[in-house]
């Protein structure tokens, strides 16, 4: 193998698995260390810089970081990254003076944001401080978009959302709430320099063709519409017997909300097997904890309506069969159809984009699924002035993805307004600094804690089920937060190898607890992976390969289960190994502009 090019910032970035997996590339180990040091405000601000809504995401994030966490590969459970973020948000000090303000004199450019969800608010956050005049339009009475309408208050208290939305709106954003934009043509006719569309995926899928759907309509609700109606307090009760159709996180929110609005016998019924449901495992657990059974392998067949009143639904029982390519089909088991009683049914089987308000003659091309053609890097549509972000851009994902796309959209808008090429993206900010303090001392806590993942305490079910707004999760307290933070392996403390210092004493190879390091003759990657101290079977993880050493061998390090304990560097007599902290931050529009104007 050729020597690894560690000058490519993506090499070390990839070693920090959590940060690499995060769509917004939040510097996770950095803020976790700050939490352990009780520097909550700084931890919060690192998050705020990257993901804009730490308090919201610390409660509701889909956590793409956690399955990626290296801890999950050496032990059973990853670090509770998401809930640590909440510790920072819960304990932070006053941050008002740390948040940038809009300059008194703007740059003369005006940008319209359609929809006030996480993507649009991120664009506002990035562009307002550098002088853009931002106008946000939303049909609801407050900002937040789906974070407000879809996420129930028992998971995300309103004051947390309000605070983080207002931090952005207070930058001098012009808000146009309770304003439904019915024509993009009208918006484009105004004097905006760019338009950003962050209208989400607002249409819930229905089962329009199922027998009885029309007759029972009064008691059949579309999940996301019903959740919004609850959030804005238009709906405050539901029948005793409730069926929730669907296996995603919206279904989990629907069933748990139902339990709080009078639903006593609430069931989730899903087509797929339990293990293949789209909902996050922890959300399924929380639903079951609230006495909500999840019936899998049930395909809805009809709504049963008697005398104009919904009585329940019938389902066909199926089992999953997989062909050679792993493609799943659900085949009937042949058992008799099952009837399940219901006063109300919530349909939460997915959501779709819908752009009835965008005229088709504006130069914005749509594909055969009625989705706008959007560049996946710049988020520009085929009308150069119009940008998309969040669920509206590339289909429904999650809040953190919307934020990441908002950052990129903001960069694009900034470049566009300056007449620059959108493909000339700013490089990430990176830094690599030795952590050596002494022979056995590093400026990070290199000892690997053996604690198992701590569980977040929940409020008493008897209380939370009575009050829709009572938050279920209590969050880690400071001590639990510290202990959980100590489980972090500090993967950003990189093992940096300088081959011309190496005397090949093998000390690092002998000491490495997880057998990551091997000195051997070079070969192809495929061959090397089999010849290491422990076979490198995880192909997603890179091999760090040195140049040829004095004896003709090379040093090969499998990054897979490195504990970043620093023992290789401590046992190295010549400091050929050093632990160096790698900081990687995605450049945001407001930084780009600062360098542009400097």
């Amino acid at each position, binding site marked *: 193998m050729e020597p690894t090019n560690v000058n490519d910032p993506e090499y070390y970035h990839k070693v920090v698995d959590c940060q690499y997996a995060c769509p917004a590339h939040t510097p996770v180990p950095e803020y976790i260390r700050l939490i352990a040091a009780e520097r909550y405000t700084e931890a919060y601000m690192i998050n705020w810089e990257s993901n804009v809504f730490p308090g919201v995401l610390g409660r509701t994030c889909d956590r793409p970081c956690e399955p990626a966490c290296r801890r999950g590969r050496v032990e059973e459970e990853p670090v509770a990254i998401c809930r640590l973020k909440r510790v920072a948000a819960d304990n932070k000090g006053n941050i008002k003076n740390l948040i940038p303000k809009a300059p008194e004199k703007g740059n003369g450019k005006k940008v319209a944001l359609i929809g006030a969800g996480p993507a649009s608010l991120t664009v506002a956050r990035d562009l307002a401080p550098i002088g853009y005049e931002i106008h946000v339009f939303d049909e609801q009475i407050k900002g937040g978009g789906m974070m407000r309408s879809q996420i129930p208050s028992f998971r995300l208290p309103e004051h947390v959302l309000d605070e983080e939305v207002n931090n952005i709106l207070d930058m001098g954003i012009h808000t146009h709430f309770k304003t439904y934009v019915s024509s993009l043509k009208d918006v484009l006719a105004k004097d905006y320099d760019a338009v950003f569309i962050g209208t989400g995926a607002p249409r819930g899928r229905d089962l329009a063709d199922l027998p009885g759907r029309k007759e029972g309509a009064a008691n059949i609700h579309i999940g996301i519409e019903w959740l919004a109606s609850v959030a804005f307090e238009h709906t405050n009760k539901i029948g005793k017997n409730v069926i929730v159709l669907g296996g995603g996180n919206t279904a989990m929110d629907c069933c748990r909300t139902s339990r709080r609005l009078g639903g006593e016998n609430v069931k989730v019924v899903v087509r797929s097997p339990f293990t293949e449901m789209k909902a996050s495992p922890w959300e399924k657990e929380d639903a079951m904890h609230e006495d909500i059974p999840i019936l899998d392998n049930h395909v809805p067949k009809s709504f049963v309506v008697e005398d104009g009143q919904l009585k329940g639904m019938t389902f066909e029982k199926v089992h999953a069969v997989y062909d050679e390519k792993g493609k799943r089909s659900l085949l009937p088991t042949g058992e008799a159809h099952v009837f399940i009683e219901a006063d109300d049914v919530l349909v939460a089987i997915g959501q779709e984009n819908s752009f009835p308000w965008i005229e088709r003659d504006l130069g914005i091309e749509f594909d055969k699924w009625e989705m706008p053609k959007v560049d996946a890097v710049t988020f520009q549509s085929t009308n150069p002035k119009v940008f998309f972000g969040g669920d509206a851009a590339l289909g429904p994902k999650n809040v953190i993805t919307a934020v990441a796309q908002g950052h990129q959209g903001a960069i694009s808008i900034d470049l566009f307004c300056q007449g620059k090429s959108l493909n000339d993206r700013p490089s990430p900010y990176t830094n690599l600094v030795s952590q050596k303090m002494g022979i056995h001392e590093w400026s990070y806590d290199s*000892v690997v804690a053996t604690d198992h993942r701590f569980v977040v305490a929940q409020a008493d079910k008897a209380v939370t089920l009575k009050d829709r707004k009572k938050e279920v999760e209590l969050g880690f307290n400071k001590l639990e937060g510290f202990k959980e933070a100590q489980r972090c392996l500090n993967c950003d403390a990189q093992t940096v190898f300088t081959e011309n210092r190496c005397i090949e*004493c093998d000390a690092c190879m002998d000491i490495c607890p*997880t057998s990551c390091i091997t000195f051997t003759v070079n070969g192809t990657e495929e061959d090397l992976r089999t010849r290491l101290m422990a076979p490198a079977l995880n192909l997603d993880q890179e091999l760090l390969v040195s140049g040829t050493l004095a*004896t003709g061998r090379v040093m090969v390090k499998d990054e897979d289960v490195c504990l970043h*304990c620093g023992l290789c560097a401590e046992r*190295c*007599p010549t400091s050929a190994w050093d632990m160096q902290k790698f900081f990687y931050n995605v450049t945001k529009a407001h930084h780009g502009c600062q360098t542009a104007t400097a």
Partner: protein
Amino acid sequence: MTYIRPTFRHPNLPKNKINYTRKDYEGALSTLCAGCGHDSISGAIIQACFELAIEPHRLAKMSGIGCSSKTPAYFLGNSHGFNSVHGRMPSVATGAYLANRDLVYFGVSGDGDTASIGMGQFVHAIRRNLNMVYIVMNNGCYGLTKGQDSATADAGSVSKAGSTNMFNAIDLVGLGLELGATFVARSFSGDKTQLIPLIKAAMSHPGFALIDVISPCVTFNNNTGSTKSYDYVREHIEATSTIDFVPTMEEITTSYEEGDSKEVTLHDGSILNLQKLNQGWNPEDKLSAMIALQNAKSKGEILTGLIYIEPNTQSLHEVLGTCQTPLNALKEDILCPGIDALEALNQSLR
């Protein structure tokens, strides 16, 4: 601050025949200097015992005093061990070996512990052909007392402080050959591909197996001018052959060319495959071994690898015709056969 080794290990660590991983052969975290050759030898011992699938409780580590003699704490933490008086390890090992012939005896000593204070003990252990591995971690200096020249330091070798050694070195390999050691080898801590098969062969050998391992002292004897530094040894190393150890019952899958190679079948049926043989050298011919050693020395080379082996040797127990069962396993009726047996014995001596 880390004096603690994390408890996590690689989840796909290979397992040996008795289902153990390398972790089961590890010891405590070393307190020797960073980069010490001795740690590398400990690593080779761990790997050799893992590969031979030795049950840790079937092995006893014996040592004296010195940096080298601390190392048994850093490997095979589940084995027996005896850290004896300076230079007196051979006596303790002799006693242990006579009491229990069923264990694998692993003696670890240093150049001071063997070539100076323990010389009188060392030579008799060889003469008696104890069935043990005797590793000398040879760094040519007294690392524990700040690096004074030891008896194995070469004449002309320059110390870290700048003084030149005036005395000739004791060559432990030459001494071993002369005294009739039945397995003699030299290796280098920085060459595990050679050291590991040598240790495995030494453990399979039924008599006294001496391995003199040059092990640079990074702190006091790794400077320019030293003849025991990593750089000097690498520049002057010359191997008798490459070594491949094939355990008993394992099929030999590689084939070698005639003439340049030799197979030595060990007492227990395992095979040593020696390749790229030194000219004129035959590991089973003591005279050729001595010549090869002297030739290398005259050329300023350090000869490593297997030097000499007498595969079918008789160890001390066989020479003495002692009981097959370890003393601790003998039952009272054997140890004390009763008055009738005593009478019969007395009668036979009349």
